[in-house]
């Protein structure tokens, strides 16, 4: 009986401690305030060359997303702290406050926007579909969406949302991995008939694998904005990033960084400026 009482006391103490910790968490300060006071910002990054990549040998982090965010933070004397994350878990990482922003090639899609808040678009990117060379069954998206056709896609990517929304008859295989070439491997090994991935990743892979061909290489479909993800409550941080990105866009700084890397198949909105008398 005494043992049972001690277990109950232990459980009660643990519950009280947990509630205390949760309420402490609730009054945590805004990421922007923390950035300014601690002079550091925790940035989630996802391996996806050429936007963000780690050199396999030297471990040096590079890519135009890395350059852009580093440039922004340098203007306010803040040090970036880069934390690697994945396509399928970056939303959870943001919500768990493992980092304060995800500076990656994340498609700002409507379902994602229900969970995380995006900055203004940095540029736009479309999707491509890949099949085995010689497989001439597919000419359009309608040809793909047929019974008996297996479509491979990486789970959690914008492509995954797109196929779920677009294909109702095809069998969709969502691969839980961070490797954007996984869907193409599935086609290569005969596990799937079609791979759906962003146009740039597809182009890069096909260059080294002639046994695969792209269906829409010159006309990527479903163009979507690429933007960085933040938590909804971090409005000040997002405001700061939007101002910085707009400044860099107008001054050609974003293009300057992007052009240091191989062509990425991006699309940009080019506003026309008129002098006002």
């Amino acid at each position: 009986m005494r043992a049972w009482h001690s277990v109950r006391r232990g459980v009660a103490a643990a519950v009280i401690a947990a509630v205390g910790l949760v309420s402490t968490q609730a009054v945590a300060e805004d990421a922007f305030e923390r950035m300014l006071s601690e002079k550091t910002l925790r940035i989630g990054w996802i391996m996806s060359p050429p936007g963000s990549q780690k050199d396999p040998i030297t471990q040096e982090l590079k890519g135009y997303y890395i350059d852009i965010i580093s440039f922004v933070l340098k203007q306010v004397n803040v040090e970036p702290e880069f934390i690697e994350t994945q396509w399928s878990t970056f939303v959870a990482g943001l919500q768990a406050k493992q980092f304060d922003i995800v500076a990656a090639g994340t498609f700002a899609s409507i379902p994602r926007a229900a969970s995380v808040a995006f900055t203004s678009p940095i540029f736009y990117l479309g999707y491509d579909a890949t099949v085995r060379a010689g497989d001439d069954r597919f000419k359009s998206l309608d040809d793909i969406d047929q019974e008996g056709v297996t479509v491979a896609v990486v789970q959690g990517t914008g492509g995954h949302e797109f196929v779920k929304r677009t294909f109702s008859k095809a069998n969709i295989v969502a691969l839980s991995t961070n490797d954007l070439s996984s869907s193409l491997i599935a086609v290569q090994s005969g596990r799937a008939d079609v791979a759906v991935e962003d146009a740039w990743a597809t182009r890069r892979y096909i260059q080294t694998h002639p046994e695969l061909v792209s269906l829409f290489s010159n006309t990527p479909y479903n163009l979507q904005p690429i933007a960085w993800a933040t938590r909804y409550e971090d409005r000040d941080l997002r405001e700061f990033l939007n101002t910085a990105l707009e400044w860099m866009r107008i001054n050609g700084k974003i293009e300057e960084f992007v052009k240091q890397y191989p062509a990425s198949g991006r699309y940009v909105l080019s506003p026309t400026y008129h002098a006002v008398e």
Partner: protein
Amino acid sequence: MYTWHFDVPWDYRAVFLRGAAVTAEISVGALIIGLTCGLVIGLARLSKRRALSWPAAFFVETFRSTPTIVQLVWIYYALPILTGIQLSAYNAVLLGLGGHTAAYMAEIFRAGVNSIEKGQMRAALAIGMTPYQAMRRIILPQAVRRMVPPFVNEFATLVKLTSLASVLAVPEILHEANNLIASTYRPMEIYSTVALCFALIVFPMIYAASILEKLWRKDR
């Protein structure tokens, strides 16, 4: 016809070695946590005091009944939201795999101790030993021999489970390989090399365990 290019993983062998070092580090770290906590939890489960045996049973069954990958993701993403305790991805993996190993080690300890005839403990107590002395001098030396083969099997499983750390972007072999694929676009060759790396690490352990088992069987 697919053309294999094993020159790519060979050119990047330093990456695999670095990944293997992290895999070894995580395996040894989780094993130390698992052995230490597993012994304590295993003995607690054997205790007649419910205040000890119930929490120990709860710990073991929680870890045994949930997938390891879910445990890792939960510790890394859900624990900070619930408690405010923020662990790095590496520490979350150590804690998750350490806890997982502790649960299984505890069961191995318990089974090992239970496999020794009850009369031996009674005899040790009858000649004036304390329960602690009886456990240390009589029961454990015999039980440990019986525990070694399952220990080694558990360690081999642990080494393979470290590949789950790639989900949290911890740079063990599989994660390094995934990143390498993103740069080189040679997945078939790189995944084949990852499989070979794991086989090279795990096979000697399993082989050593089988030799040890045969030697002890001869001694009996």
